[in-house]
């Protein structure tokens, strides 16, 4: 069976100064899990650290994901690795997609992007356009050359305002938001100062009409392991070693467990299993961050272990 937790780099292209776009696919070419605008995937790079990247491709293409990676200023860690070393044909670890920034139904949207924060908004504006909503995008960046996907956005004409700081100064948030009525949902993704500014600018409006996602540069969670770990089934005491070629679900079945599953891609929730010991390496599309942090259950069709030993209630 095709490994569900790795993707292969199919294309790597420059999207702007300091930004590369990666096209990712299943090593065997199969369908990828479905996603909606605002979703991100967790990618595990050679360093073992997991980073989140917003999907910015076309969801009608079931076989490819696109993400864009900014080279961070301090030049360390995952982003430098992607820029300098990751090559077409390499594989990366993969979890998700997950979505904490979903596009809610509305007839009017205002989108505000800061820098690489354009990535989750790109599929949103395409979708807003598709459903015939009234929308506008204000897109800021340090300079025009650093702003990815401005070319793709050009076809939307004057709905899109590209506003490089070196040409026009800070984003004109107040005038952009001036017309927002109670039927307008504002979406913003970018660095923390931009989010603070937009929260101020919309403080008088009902809170659910502002939806934000912070562009997180930090690396998240416990480092993910590629080495085998030991899976213990609490109900029978059976143990089995899980190498990278095996899912926890498959390993548990080989060790005699009955574990009902369905989608086997971390979306349907059928295989949810309590964790009794060990730290899960969550790869599903289901759990919210606080549920992940609790570490008391996992979806063994895709999720794995950060620790040497994982004990499941199976």
């Amino acid at each position, binding site marked *: 069976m095709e490994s569900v937790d790795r993707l292969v780099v199919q294309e790597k292209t420059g999207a702007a100064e300091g930004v590369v776009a990666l096209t990712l696919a299943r090593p065997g070419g199969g369908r990828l899990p479905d996603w909606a605008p605002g979703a991100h995937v967790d990618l595990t790079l050679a360093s073992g650290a997991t980073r989140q990247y917003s999907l910015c491709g076309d969801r009608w293409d079931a076989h490819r994901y696109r993400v864009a990676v900014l080279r961070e200023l301090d030049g360390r860690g995952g982003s430098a690795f992607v820029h300098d070393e990751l090559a077409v044909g390499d594989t990366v670890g993969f979890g998700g997609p997950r979505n904490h920034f979903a596009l809610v139904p*509305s007839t009017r949207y205002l989108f505000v992007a800061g820098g690489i924060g354009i990535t989750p908004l790109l599929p949103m504006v395409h979708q807003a356009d598709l459903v015939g909503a009234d929308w506008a995008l204000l897109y800021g960046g340090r300079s025009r050359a650093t702003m990815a996907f401005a070319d793709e956005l050009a076809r939307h004409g004057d709905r899109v305002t590209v506003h490089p700081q070196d040409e026009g100064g800070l984003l004109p948030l107040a005038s952009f938001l001036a017309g927002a009525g109670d039927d307008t949902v504002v979406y913003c993704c970018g660095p923390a100062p931009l989010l603070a500014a937009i929260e101020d600018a919309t403080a008088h409006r009902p809170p659910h009409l502002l939806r934000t996602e912070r562009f997180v540069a930090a690396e998240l969670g416990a480092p993910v392991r590629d080495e085998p770990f030991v899976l213990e089934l609490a109900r029978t005491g059976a143990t089995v070693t899980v190498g990278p070629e095996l899912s926890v679900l498959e390993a548990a079945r080989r060790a005699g467990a009955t574990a009902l599953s369905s*989608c086997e891609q971390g979306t349907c929730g059928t295989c949810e299993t309590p964790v009794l010991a060990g730290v899960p390496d969550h790869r599903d599309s289901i759990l919210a961050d606080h549920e992940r942090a609790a570490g008391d259950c996992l979806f063994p069709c895709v999720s794995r272990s950060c620790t040497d030993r994982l004990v499941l209630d199976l």
Partner: protein
Amino acid sequence: MTATTTPPATPPATPPATVPALDVDPFSHETLEDPLPMQEALREAGPVVHLPRYDLFAVARYAEVRAALVDWQRFPSSAGVGMSNFRHEEPWRPPSLLLEADPPHHDAPRAVLSAILGPRALRRLTDRWFADAEDLVAGLLDGAGATVELDGMTALAEAFPLRVFPDAVGLPPEGREHLLPYGDHAFNAFGPSNDLVAKGAPRVGELSAWVASQCAREVLTDDGFGAAIWAASDRGDITPAQAPLIVRSLLTAGVDTTVHGLGAVLHGLATHPEAWATLRARPERARVAFDEAVRWQSPVQTFFRTADVDVPIGGTVVPADRKILMFLGAANRDPRHWADPDRFDLDRDPSGHVGYGMGLHQCVGQHVARLEGAALLTALARRVERLEPAAAPVRHHNNTMRAFASLPLRLHLDGVTGPSPGRGRGGRRGR
């Protein structure tokens, strides 16, 4: 209100010569009484089959059914998941925001319902539903003697969902008897406009009006699935106009399905004594047993899609705008995928069956269904030593569902007569 389907006005293009044609009627009474011979003929005829009677394409093998189910991009649902093509015919009711919608419109309603009906959200209902099941079973068995004969459909398969599900949604007590006939008609309406649809037509207006009236915020209790859907509209995750139609989805899809799912598992257990023995010895298998029954009987037998473009599948091409009928029940018994598929077998791993569909539209209520199944089976296994048919079951014919009208059962009770005192409700409760 036009209920149904007429043949397309323009003669359709002849299907490619490579597609075998099979002159079967999946919606005749003869087939609905026993669809298995037709399903086998469809599977053996080829990966894709043309049904000249309705000028339809059909898939009945596991691989092709699954491939069509997950491919929402090329096989969308918004043109209807029944025989009628909404691009050319008016639906009999405002289309479902889930079942009959595609991305992006499908996204928000689906996200909201997935959270409300997800396993972690259902935990608060688990103990109550297990206790309700024990209570229902006690009401039937207490003081009844060493054996009890009952109709498994009315006494158990209908009684249990009707006891727990409308409460969980938050419906008022009055009028709940409309739920089953409404669902029965809705599932008939996915088929051709045959006598089954005609039978339901006189009451459509009345039933639809009742269902619509139950979806209003002020009618629903403030702690059920319905209130949670309205709360999502307060948060702006869906619009207030969407909320009542999403409540309606629960009322249409959430009752008859589990009734006939429970009928299926009771029938399986009654006709397979070794399976009942397994369940008695390992009651934690109740959840798997329920899914095995959903595979084996496939209470939802069929759904349609519409080709958005010319779609290559199974060595042929389904032309754009043409309907394709997916036989979930046939896929769940495809010997290419399942060993000894006609056997109801508690030692089998039914994982991956398509009885709840697969992909983007896969049943959002599947965790509710499994919880109902696990609760009722656990309660029965605690008290019933042996279960057997008391007479031949009677099928109920529906264009979409594989259903029972009655399921006469004889229950041999554990040990002495009367309630089994002091049996704590310990042990795991299934998840």
